[in-house]
């Protein structure tokens, strides 16, 4: 039976590569947010309260003055909808957690610590020591570095000067590659891209996000049905 200390050490040693990988991404997030006029305090608050990289990048890309609250909240909800499935899978594995630890722990569930916890749970009991040793440094590091990025970004000035505005597009393309699941994703991306660009031209923002997301989803539903039929036919 490993002690809480051993578990905490395991958590820390499991999370640090993901933490390191998040540093430049958080820096870039802070700098781009500053480019959109968000203050360091706002960047720190968003990172500490929302703590969801993909949704935060999307929000900053959509950000304007005054803030389009409906579009921001809706886009965040859509991008984070996957958390419903992730937390539903993780929740039964939190038997050793007190109710407070369960709420606090899941509040800061992101892709990285979720994946590591699921992996850990296949061979060990998931303990609060392991989870929080993983999660607390990850959150603190992300919030701190994002805030630092916003201070640096504010000093650098207009991000368009060195093509940094395109960093959003590039990051999103890289993130989509991380979510890639073959043919279904290809149809999703094609439908979402075309519908969004067309809606942007015809109706303007923020409707392009809704139209693109819905067309992407419809394409995924259709392509998954086709894929399923193909697998059945082969079997």
């Amino acid at each position: 039976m490993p002690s809480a200390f051993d578990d905490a050490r395991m958590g820390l040693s499991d999370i640090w590569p993901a933490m390191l990988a998040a540093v430049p991404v958080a820096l870039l997030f802070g700098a781009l947010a500053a480019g959109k006029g968000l203050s360091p305090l706002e960047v720190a608050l968003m990172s500490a309260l929302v703590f969801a990289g993909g949704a935060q990048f999307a929000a900053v890309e959509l950000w304007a003055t005054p803030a389009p609250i409906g579009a921001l909240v809706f886009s965040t909800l859509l991008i984070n909808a996957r958390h419903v499935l992730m937390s539903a899978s993780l929740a039964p594995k939190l038997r050793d957690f007190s109710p407070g630890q369960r709420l606090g722990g899941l509040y800061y569930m992101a892709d990285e610590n979720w994946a590591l916890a699921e992996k850990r749970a296949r061979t060990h009991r998931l303990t609060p020591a392991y989870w929080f040793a993983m999660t607390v440094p990850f959150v603190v590091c992300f919030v701190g570095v994002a805030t630092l990025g916003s201070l640096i970004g504010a000093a650098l000035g207009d991000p368009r000067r060195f093509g940094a505005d395109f960093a959003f597009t590039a990051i999103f393309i890289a993130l989509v590659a991380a979510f890639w699941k073959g043919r279904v994703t290809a149809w999703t991306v094609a439908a979402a891209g075309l519908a969004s660009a067309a809606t942007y031209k015809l109706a303007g923002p923020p409707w392009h996000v809704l139209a693109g997301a819905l067309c992407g989803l419809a394409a995924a539903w259709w392509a998954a049905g086709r894929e399923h039929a193909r697998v059945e036919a082969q079997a």
Partner: protein
Amino acid sequence: MSLDALNLLAILGMALVTCATRLAGLALAGRLDLSPRAQAAFDAIPPAVLIAVIAPGALATGWAETGAALLTALAATRLPVLGVVAVGVVAVVALRAL
């Protein structure tokens, strides 16, 4: 250090819906049984939204941006995130200068 009231409201709204998605699992655990097709559609939400957000910038801005987006997508098939960003930024600066 400034905090705009509307920005704060937007951040709180984002935090609220994110928190709801993360805590929903506590109520749903063991009761959620998605068909493979519904699961595939669910998995497709993040890429669909991410692409919907950037599509106007990548497809409806100009040839430089569209070209750079294609090069970036190519880079994304083999490079880590930061490498992809580097390729995209250099490509857009070069193509805008043409």
